[in-house]
């Protein structure tokens, strides 16, 4: 059973690293696979100990290899000594339990939390996290769409998001960039901050409206605060200029796709190579017009102030290399560039930072499992690390002459020095309690 679980978890763990990492990936595969082994063993052994219940000498030893030991003689009758031991354990906050082994009467006392419960939660939590990671890599659907302000998209229309189990429309009512220095300074510190950071980007924000089965909803998303609707998380996934392309393939509905546009110096470059038309590629260069003072400081040219030229090039893959088929230069960014290639139609549009929100759409069904695992892990750690578990064993052995030999042992799940002083006090008090009017024999080897 354990081996089956191990194989299952190992296989799932390997999937976690699927598609990631490069040359060192085999190392992570081994690591993740190995991780499952001790976890399964840990859960199994902790569960066994928890289910077995009670305490025994084996547990006493397993808590610590070298339990503290004290031994002395008592003149009391066995029945009186038994009562005294139970009273003693209860009075010191230990939960007593009773047992007999041959001629020896044994009492166990435990104090604090059960270690196995903490261990069980800890290992189970980690195992669940591992499973959640595997489930996530299998089931997560993720994609980025760039929504121009005022436009609406149906998620299933977007390439890569058609696998989403939910469908709803998303529109961006308004988007804006917050800059430092916009708000009035509330203090001397804020005034100085504004002077330092003035004009730098503080946050990206978008007012998003969602329409789906759960009814209409709206909210503001920022770069670090996503919005969740019908289990789908919508966050900010990209800022800056983007290219939007609408692709119409024969016999299929038109879909949207996106390609990044990067700034190099003061020019913007974009590249698009549609997966379905692998032999085709497009590049776009938005460069400042030589007659204008564009690109000051190497930043993004402001379309409202700067004249720009768009140079777009079409490539085709021929005989092992990309060849330029067509190159055009236009003085302004056209509203749309259409390109026909046989039965295929591609329509390109440019959008810039002030008019588009790059939204990251994520559907990850493993999140609740991961949250639950994380909660178990932390609870288990707290129980295991911050709650001491102490255990004592008192053995009463009837000796010749009516005396009792008392063997007192104690251990804990933390380093012995933390328990040593408490154990010595307990031994001293037990000796007094069982002395029947005065110590006899004396402690040996505490």
């Amino acid at each position, binding site marked *: 059973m354990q081996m089956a679980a191990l194989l299952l978890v190992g296989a799932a763990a390997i999937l*976690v*690293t699927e598609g*990631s*990492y490069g040359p060192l990936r085999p190392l*992570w595969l081994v*690591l993740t696979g190995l*991780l499952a082994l*001790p976890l399964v063993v840990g859960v199994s052994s902790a569960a066994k100990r928890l289910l077995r219940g009670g305490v025994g000498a084996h547990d006493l030893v*397993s808590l*610590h*290899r*070298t339990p503290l030991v004290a031994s002395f003689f008592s003149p009391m009758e066995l029945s009186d000594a038994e009562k005294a031991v139970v009273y003693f354990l209860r009075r010191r906050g230990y939960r007593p339990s009773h047992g007999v082994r041959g001629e020896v009467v044994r009492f166990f006392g435990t104090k604090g939390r059960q270690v196995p419960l903490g261990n069980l939660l800890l290992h189970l939590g980690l195992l669940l996290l591992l499973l959640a*990671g595997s489930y*996530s890599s299998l089931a*997560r659907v*993720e994609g980025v769409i760039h929504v121009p302000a005022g436009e609406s998209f149906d998620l299933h229309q977007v390439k890569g998001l058609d696998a989403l189990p939910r469908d709803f429309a998303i529109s961006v009512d308004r988007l804006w960039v917050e800059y*430092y220095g916009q708000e009035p300074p509330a*203090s001397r*510190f*804020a005034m*100085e*901050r504004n002077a*330092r*950071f003035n004009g*730098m*980007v*503080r*946050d*990206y924000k978008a007012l998003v409206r969602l329409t789906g089965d759960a009814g209409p909803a709206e909210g503001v998303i*920022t*770069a*670090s*605060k*996503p919005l969740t609707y019908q289990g789908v*998380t919508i*966050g*900010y*996934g990209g*800022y800056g200029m983007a290219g939007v392309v609408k692709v119409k393939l024969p016999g299929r509905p038109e879909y949207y796709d996106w390609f990044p546009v990067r700034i190099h110096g003061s020019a913007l470059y974009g590249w698009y190579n549609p997966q379905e038309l692998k032999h085709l590629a497009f590049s776009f260069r938005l460069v400042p017009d030589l007659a204008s003072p564009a690109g000051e400081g190497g930043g993004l040219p402001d379309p409202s102030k700067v004249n720009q030229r768009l140079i777009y090039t079409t490539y085709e893959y021929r005989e092992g290399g990309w060849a330029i088929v067509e190159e055009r230069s236009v003085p302004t960014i056209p509203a749309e560039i259409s390109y026909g290639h046989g039965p295929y139609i591609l329509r390109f549009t440019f959008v810039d930072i002030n008019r588009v929100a790059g939204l*990251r759409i*994520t559907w*990850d069904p493993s*999140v609740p499992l*991961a949250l639950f695992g*994380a909660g178990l*892990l*932390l609870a288990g*750690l*707290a129980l295991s*690390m*911050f709650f001491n578990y102490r255990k004592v064993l008192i053995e009463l052995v009837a000796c010749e002459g009516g005396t009792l030999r008392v063997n007192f042992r104690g251990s804990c*799940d*933390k*380093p*012995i*020095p*933390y328990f040593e002083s408490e154990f010595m006090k307990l031994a001293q008090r037990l000796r007094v309690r069982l002395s029947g009017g005065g110590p006899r024999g004396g402690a040996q080897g505490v």
Partner: protein
Amino acid sequence: MTEAELILFWVTLSAYGLAAASFLFGLIRKGQGADRVGVYLAAVGLAAHVAGLTHRSLLSGHLPGAELYELNSLGALLTVFVFLLVQARRPALRVAGSAVSFIAALLLLFGYLSNPEISPLPPEFRSEWFFVHIFFSFLAFACYATSASASGLYLWKSSYPDNGFLKSRVPSLEILDALSFRLVSFGFVFHAMMVISGSFWAYTAWGSYWSWDPIETWSLVTWLIYGIYLHLYLTLGWRGRRMALLNIIALVVIVLNFWGLGHLPGQGGHY
């Protein structure tokens, strides 16, 4: 850095440096007085450090964590804080103060040399989870560093069992062993909280709570190394020099993880 922050920085650095020297003097000359002076100096340094970082946070409008200087400074602050807490409970551990104060001063200086200028917080870092992540990461480091200092003392003392100086000035081997374990167990919990809060932050900022980037992976690896340490200690009952050695090796892996891997290109949200 403003002038006020710069003054507080140098007061902090000088106090930590002097505290390290004072602890070292106390260790060599067996002087309890020098140890006490070391504690006072470290406390003065800590107060100036808290004042400096508070001033910086008010000015930048965010908690420390935006750049390397703030991260290293926070690490130094928490290391000294944890040490002062531990030595208040176990005064015998003051002998480890020279190592701890030296580590703190080194961190502070490293941060200062990287770039101490205040910069705005990047938009994707404007999350509460990010600061929780940073706080627990350095709290864990502080526990691990103090624990490794105790383990270093363990190795030193156990190498010279008959040395009268070590007998009289350094806590017993059992105490050092237990203290190392105790601090690692605290660090282990904080480390777990760091990883979990980091996952929350990553989910809100990048849509994925775990992406197996090198820093994430090595953070998990170091957590597992400390997990092995705890298992060896609690389950198999390992004690002594080999555990002290493992503890120090684990700290070296942590240092390489943060100060080594973090400076490689392409670390995403990590430094």
